[in-house]
């Protein structure tokens, strides 16, 4: 199914969800910005529809741009071989606390691995997902801070062993 029919279908079932359409870098893949509160609904539609059938979440990555966290979903279809990219964003609180975002694990169960990694490294809490996310725990129990945020400062001492200062990236 081509992109125009996909867009019109989404606009008729979930009006106002698609905020913007752009190209992913210089490639042929299409990227859609979705409103945060309709992400779970859009995910359901594109998986269940027989002509779209995007049922494989290939990658879910997060990055910090300025004061916002941007999530990129790369979804593919086993049946047709097509690919679509979805994007959502959330603001980081000024105090540096945990960010909430809806979870897509009910639609795509393979998202559990990606989401638990992002929860730990960026300080995000994914809501309304399936449980059992503690399979992956990358950091030592009781780690303070979220390492992949831009304002993270390396700890001075861990487990009684001293750790040096990090290099600022302009060196």
């Amino acid at each position: 199914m081509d992109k125009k029919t996909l867009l019109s279908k989404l606009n008729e079932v979930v009006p106002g969800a698609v905020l913007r359409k752009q190209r992913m870098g210089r490639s042929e893949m299409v990227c859609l910005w979705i409103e945060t509160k309709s992400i779970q609904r859009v995910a359901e539609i594109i998986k269940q529809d027989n002509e779209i059938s995007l049922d494989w979440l290939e990658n879910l990555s997060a990055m910090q741009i300025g004061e916002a966290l941007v999530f990129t979903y790369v979804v593919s279809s086993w049946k047709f071989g097509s690919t679509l990219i979805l994007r959502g964003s959330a603001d980081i609180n000024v105090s540096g606390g945990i960010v909430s975002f809806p979870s897509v694990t009910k639609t795509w169960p393979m998202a559990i691995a990606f989401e638990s990694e992002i929860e730990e490294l960026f300080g995000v809490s994914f809501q309304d997902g399936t449980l059992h996310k503690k399979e992956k725990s990358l950091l030592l129990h009781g780690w303070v801070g979220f390492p992949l945020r831009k304002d993270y400062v390396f700890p001075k001492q861990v487990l009684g062993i001293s750790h040096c200062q990090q290099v600022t990236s302009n060196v």
Partner: protein
Amino acid sequence: MFDSSEWLNTDLNTFEIGPYDYRLQAPMKLSLKADGELIVSAAIETGFLHKGVEKALEIQKWRASIAYADRLDSSAAVFAELALCLGVEEIIMLPVPPRAQKIRIILSELNRISSHLACVAAVARSTGALAVMHHVLRDREQVLDLLELVSGARFSPNFLRFGGVKEDVSDGFIEKMIETCETILIRLKEYDKTLIFSDTFIGRAKKVGLIEKKLANETGMTGPNAKATGLMYDVRSSSPYSGYADIDINVPLAPAGHEHLGDAYARILIRIQEIATSIDILKQAAEKMPIGDFCSKKPEDEIIVPRGEAYIRVESSRGLLGCHVVSDGGPTPARIQFRTPSMAGVMALPKVLPGNKLDDLSVILSSMDLGMSEVDK
């Protein structure tokens, strides 16, 4: 007289297999509940090999990012380098000369052969065929010698650059490579006699660690593990990159209804057939090697990457490796994220292990070829 089912009931035992254990190929924690010898449920904890590669990539400059991509997983080093270079070249819009593309194919396939041979050696060691393990490691040394002839290092070549490769291959390299390929083809037939068609190995690997095609679909498994269940997905043939477009690739796939569909034996067979496919690709690449430049950027040129992003897929020896590169125009990358293929295998383990015996644990784990250092990054 007495009803034996009353007193022959066993309670479930709990086994905690800790980070360092001879049955595990890499540090991880497994918590198994077993009824005697039969595994009933399993839970897995990973994260012991977390190095913080993604944060280090944001601190170091662009030139150093290739060396860090090597160290994501050392037996599949060239694939991560290739994904990163293709991503940056797409952002800069830098064309790669055809000779450099063929050299990249040669390095990738050599690395694939070396990685599959390591997996076969690990399976042979875990089933007790120690003589076969030594034979396979001896053949792996020949492939590592070839990698050393090209780049100077056996494991982390650091040979690809943005725009091509670091330098041209030396004069006698192509002939030596063809010679090594012929030797390995003969040795593959020796493995048939000693390992693949021996009744002991078939008895040890048959119906062990069954993975259904539905489970492979749900967890997003790719690579030889998925091909052994009948799920066909290979990036080299579906969306060719870096010069694969004019090379014929016959991808091995387990046919539906095969008696070994989805078990450890099929996974080993598929890996050995992939070695034969790689040798075929190497011969075609050597024939079609054009003359020309090896890099479209001089080493002393500054690397300036403008704002942009790219998502690249590469077929690594374990499955689909994805790389999301984001640049904001500065001297260091803004974000580089790798989607590693072994994550699907780790997610599928709690569903694969139940129903197997405790003694088969090492055969299952070594035949699935999980690279823990790329899962933990």
